């Protein structure tokens, strides 16, 4: 893409999309949102960045191969299930705890970890495919 406007604005839009995707991920348990749609939006952001700044720049921004994110995602989701072993409850039983963050009570839970896993899996799988397609074969 050679449009100057697009290239200038893209990083701003991408940043906003990524923040929004995290917002959706975190509020998903009580409001519309969740890991799946969050991951999709983050993936769309990366697709946009790829079109604006090129595949190489996007890959650098990701630091790791996109598929690694997906692998870590599945691992996190599985880990969220395995944790229940330490509490002698069946696999994938939801576990909840409350922590104080700057005086605000925050619930952390294995479903949250699980949702993060879904987010990363969707994100990683789609980004890896989209970037490979955008690269047009080179270094796919």
């Amino acid at each position, binding site marked *: 893409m050679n449009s100057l406007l697009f290239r200038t604005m893209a990083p701003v839009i991408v940043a906003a999309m990524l923040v929004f995707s995290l917002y*959706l991920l975190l509020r*998903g*348990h*009580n*409001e*519309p*949102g*969740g*890991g*799946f*749609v969050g991951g*999709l*939006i983050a*993936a*769309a952001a990366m*697709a946009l960045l790829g079109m604006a700044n090129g595949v190489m720049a996007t890959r650098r921004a990701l630091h790791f191969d996109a*598929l690694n994110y*997906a*692998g870590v*995602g*599945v691992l996190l*989701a*599985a880990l*969220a*299930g395995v944790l229940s072993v330490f509490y002698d409850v069946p*696999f*994938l039983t*939801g576990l*909840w705890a409350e922590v104080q963050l700057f005086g605000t009570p925050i*619930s952390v*839970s294995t*479903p*949250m970890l*699980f*949702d993060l*896993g*879904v987010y990363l*899996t*969707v994100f*990683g*799988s*789609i980004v*890896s*495919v*989209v970037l*490979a*397609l*955008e690269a*047009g*074969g*080179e270094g*796919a």
Partner: protein
Amino acid sequence: MPFRPDLLLALLPVAPLLLALVAAGMTLVLRRFAGVLLAVLPAAMFAYLATLVERVAGGEIILVHLDWIVSYGIGLDLRLDGLSLVFAMTISGIGAVVLIYAGGYLRGHPDLGRLLALLLGFTGAMLGLVLADNLVLLFVFWEATSVFSFLLIGFDRGRQAARRAAVQALLVTGIGGLALLLGAVLLAAMTGTWRVSDLLAGGSLGGTAGYLPALLLVLLAAFTKSAQVPFHFWLPNAMEAPTPVSAFLHSATMVQAGIYLLARLSPVLGGTEAWTGALVAVGGVTLLWGAVAALRQTDLKLMLAQTTIASLGLLVLMLGLGSDAAVSAAMLYFVGHALYKAALFMVVGAIDHATGTRELGALSGLARRMPLSFLAAAGAALSMLGLPLTLGYFGKEELYLALGGSGLELAALIVAVLGNGVLGGIALAIAIRPFLGPIVQTPKRAHEAGLSLLLGPLVLAAAGIGAAVLIGWFGMMAIAPAASAVAGRAVASHLSLVPDFGSLALWLSLLTWGVAAATFARLDQLRTLLRRVQGAVRFTFDAAFDRAMFGLIRLAGAVTRFIHHGRLELYVVTVFGLLALALFVPMLSYRALPPWPLLPQLRFYEWGIFALAAAGLVALLLARTRLGAIVALGVQGLAVALVYLVFGAPDLAFTQLVVEVLAVVILTLVMTRLALDRRDPREIEDLLRDGTLAVLCGVGLTAALLLVLSHPLDPRLAEFFTAHSVPEAHGRNIVNVIIVDFRGLDTLGEISVVLAAGIAVLALLRRSKPAAMPVLPTTVRKPRRRPPIVLVPALSVPDLKAQAAHPVEAKLRPDGSGA
């Protein structure tokens, strides 16, 4: 659970498998002492088993039970009776010796650690097999022995012949494994128990309805494992393995697993005409086949391999007869054979090591250079020949005592005498030809083998003679309990060292030795004759196996080419054609067509959304370029997302929106990537075909959804989730709570699929990289051969769950891509 000393029994299969995990690493540190130190474990197990001998001989059966799959009544049951004890002691004893031998045989070999680890693992699997008191456990260990033997036979993985032999052994014994599984399921279904002990207590199944199929399946398993004709061909090929492996696999283990299975199930399946007929016939044929094949060989190791087939045939024959004397003979022969065969294999390995050849004709006069090896070979060969004061003698005597009654037994007797005679001749040839006579030039200058190579054969040969000297005690402590377990009734031991000159058996033994001497004297003439016969026949089972395998591969290739033709548009046609069938066939066959829907009362902006969807559809159909069509499809999808939003499914709306955006992006990328024409140049008949399919699928889906809506909704799931979402899962967004909590296992599976699909798409993209074929610049790949559009299914998470929470909305979108 309180500690019970018998639980140590459970360690027998487990400990070698655990040690196998670290054996390779230990070998790096221990180097030349690795074999000896690792052998401590099987030796200790042998000693532990020895402490149990008296209890078992006293009639006790030691049982161990650990819970495993409680809901199916399948436990980790172990059973130590006379039969398992004899097998377990033989396996652990020879296992220890073989480990020491292997450490010396492959000293300095970079893969010695792997070999030792595999041998240990194999020992564990074999011990588990003979101790298992549960058909499921038995099957698991049975398969484990197949896998370990595959790895052991293919140890020298750089050579094609070794790999082929390994695959062949795995396939043949694998077929048997499947048969065993089926047989075990059948037995369990007939008797209602998986426990072997319960089966044995239930007595013979002969005459019941499922008996014959169960028998045939078990026999198939045993015959493939124990290399009975016509499944014998894998065994000589397995000689591609290093000699320590052959010494172990073909004396006391692997091939004896089939014998063990027959012996174990003999009280349940034995005693019928079918059993006796099948075992005696197959065993007899195998005995003669192996004996004749052994005569053809000049390679010492191959001679031994063929005699193993013959011995296995003899064992099967004895088990088939099933009389007290016959099963006693089988147990005696099993121990005697294991001892002398392992010793002879090891001696042959030592000869190979020392001289660089195993050819009978190239060896002579080694006794002066390798006196101890000669001693071991002679001791073992005497047992194989069955001279007095060896275990082989008693095994043979016992067998001859058992025979001679009926016509079948007379025939078996003749076969046994002939077979034993030829085996004796081979034994003489192996013990005498290489060692006596003038010294000849060998590829390497012969020298006596080292201690680790000598220890095994000497100990085993001595054990064969020692057990014979103490035959009265040995018979009472080992053979009688084992035979009782096989016969399913108490079998007394009457073995004694003093020969009975009045008995016919002694004269038959003399006849056997006569045949042996004649065979030995005429060995070369016999070989020439047999090779000429073989040259005339031409058919070999080995080649038939190859033909069958290649036929299978050709068939698989043909099927693959038919189904997996690589034309993307035909794949799509197939998928949607099947979808249309799946929609219409049930509806039409149940005559359940939906009622004509009433026109809904919609607000004006709702009409607007539908108008947008319709406009997208029309634009799609009229689009002149592919890009236009893709965008038009996006418009239509957008309208669907709006429908979700308006009718109260914001989650689905969100997801649908993003999916549509990404779909447009990805389809566009795919289009540019595949360098498709801007336009869609379809023939008119293709257009008709695709159009018909599209209309059919659309009408079918609409009808199915109307049908669903015409029935009252079952509210139970929706009510459950509404009631439990907040109190139990702390979440107000029911859709998300279902995804990450209530049905988390589904989601875990789904994201695994997403990941796998991503990997698959990436692999396809990399494979079809244009830059990968720079050599042929003129070759233009046909775009239809690249199917990267599989991405779209990867996006849609099949989502029945969401239906429970938003039933109406979810059903509006049949592919369920909302989540």
